[in-house]
């Protein structure tokens, strides 16, 4: 549905987006991650046709967003960053306007407005002016606008920003449900959201794609993936560290805690696999250590995110 090819945008001397290519099919929810200023919003603005690309192309449902911008825009629902809405209108008036400009008339318009009011829980504020809405309601009003014409493609720039935890949960569920039938791109800072909603995620940094895969695949990139934490009794720090380091599968051993009765160590693997825990268990049996605790870590997205986007600083605070 969405095809982005070598997309680039230059503002003055700054390359905000620098040769990005990806595609999103129907039934996919693509999470768009990256630090502030990485080029997420700029990319989304180019996909929705708000700003023209410096080079490269975007096509939505087969329509190029520059050559056939009107046809492409018809297929897109867009929630811009900060969820803007006309402050001088009521929620009802605003949604009616959006439906009308999307070409809906008469009963089709009425049904569409009723549907999104229900989906986005806006009944309580329907006749209130947008200006007086709380941030959560304003956000949902703008979100309602983006789905009013039941688009095939949804582009959501930080859809859960500024919502309370319950609302966040609702919006995520909504996105996941709609993702079954639509192609959705959404950007976020919140990594747990990626797990909760996305079928695939892209991390971009300084205008380039630095990682692209399912949340599981991304997690595998973490140094944590497959790391084993073990609490061992009846052994001194130095001995345990030395023996564990000699394991073929171990890359690095870190002692987390030390007390007279034993030590808590974490062993990072050379490659993520389930084997490491086994070898540690058999080692401790052979050495007659008492194994009090043993578990394999899953990869952590936040760590992957930081390793990828700020490679210099991560090593310092790693334990």
């Amino acid at each position, binding site marked *: 549905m969405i095809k982005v090819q070598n997309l680039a*945008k230059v*503002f*003055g001397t700054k390359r905000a987006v620098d040769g990005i290519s990806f595609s999103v099919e129907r039934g996919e929810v693509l999470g768009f991650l990256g630090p502030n200023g990485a080029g997420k919003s700029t990319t989304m*603005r180019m996909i*929705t*046709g*708000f*700003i*023209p690309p410096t080079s490269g192309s975007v096509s939505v449902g087969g329509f190029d967003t520059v050559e056939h911008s*009107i*046809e492409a*825009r*018809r297929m*897109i629902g*867009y929630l*811009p*960053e*900060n969820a*803007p*809405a*006309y*402050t*001088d*209108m009521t929620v009802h*008036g605003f949604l009616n*306007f*959006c439906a*009308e*400009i*999307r*070409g809906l008339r008469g009963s089709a318009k009425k049904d569409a407005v009723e549907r999104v009011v229900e989906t986005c829980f806006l009944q309580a504020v329907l006749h209130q*002016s947008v200006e007086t809405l709380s941030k959560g309601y304003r956000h949902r009003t*703008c979100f309602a*606008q983006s789905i009013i014409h039941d688009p095939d493609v949804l582009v959501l720039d930080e859809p859960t920003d500024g919502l309370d935890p319950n609302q966040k949960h609702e919006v995520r569920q909504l996105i996941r449900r709609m993702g079954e039938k639509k192609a959705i791109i959404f950007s976020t800072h919140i990594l747990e959201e990626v797990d909760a909603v996305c079928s695939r995620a892209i991390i971009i940094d300084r205008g380039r794609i630095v990682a692209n895969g399912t949340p599981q695949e991304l997690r595998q990139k973490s140094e944590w993936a497959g790391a084993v934490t073990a609490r061992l009794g009846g052994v001194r720090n130095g001995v345990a560290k030395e023996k564990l380091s000699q394991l073929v599968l171990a890359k690095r051993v870190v002692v987390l805690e030390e007390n007279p009765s034993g030590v808590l160590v974490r062993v990072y693997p050379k490659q993520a696999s389930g084997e490491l825990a086994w070898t540690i268990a058999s080692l401790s049996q052979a050495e007659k250590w008492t194994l009090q605790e043993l578990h394999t870590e899953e990869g952590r997205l936040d760590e992957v995110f930081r390793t990828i986007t700020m490679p210099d600083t991560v090593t310092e605070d790693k334990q």
Partner: protein
Amino acid sequence: MNTWANIKTITKRELGAYFSSPLAFVFIVIFLLLCGFFTFMVGGFFERGEASLSASFFLWHPWFYLFLVPAVGMRLWAEERRVGTLELLLTMPITTWQAIVGKFLASWIFLGLALILTFPIVITVNYLGSPDNGVILAGYLGSWLMAGAYLSISCITSAMTRNQVVSFIVSVVICLFFILAGFTPVIRLLEGWASPWLVDAITSFSVITHFDGFQKGLLDSRDLLFFLSLILFSLFSTSVILRSRRAG
């Protein structure tokens, strides 16, 4: 037609926006007060003893509009940019032109409405004497066209900035130029040193020169063309500015 449906939708929304805030009522009241005051107190409507509106009523319009029209036009694009709705509007399946024309029409209709509300003065002059109502009608048409020309200039300045005050000031200055180019004292000053063809060229840019004909009841195609081409040119400039602003 799809185009007109889109334009109509936008025009309707914009008109609604005027009347949902006190701006519309404040504007209309001030405009009517100014008209009344200048016509009767400064313009000496009664002292003249003429059954005509040109010297006492229409004479002041270029000067009222100088401040009032930029006040109406300043929010058109600046507000959209400030609130961020510009992004929403320009990613809807409408062309930039439809948005520009829709917004312009809404403000122009609003100005027309304010102008129509000065009708009591037409009734007054008809009650007191027997004026040539064709001339008055031509005056109204000219006044409305002139307001449209000012408004289109405000559109440009409004598209340039997110700050309404900046937009207001810049468009007042530009409109002032279009007035002064045909203002008698300025022409006298120019005649002192500039060659006659240059003076002619400058005065032909003035809204006053072109409004004159309408006040006398003359519908000159050149005057019509002047106002309409000024409006079209300004709206075109607005679209260029909006496009270049988006291109970054």
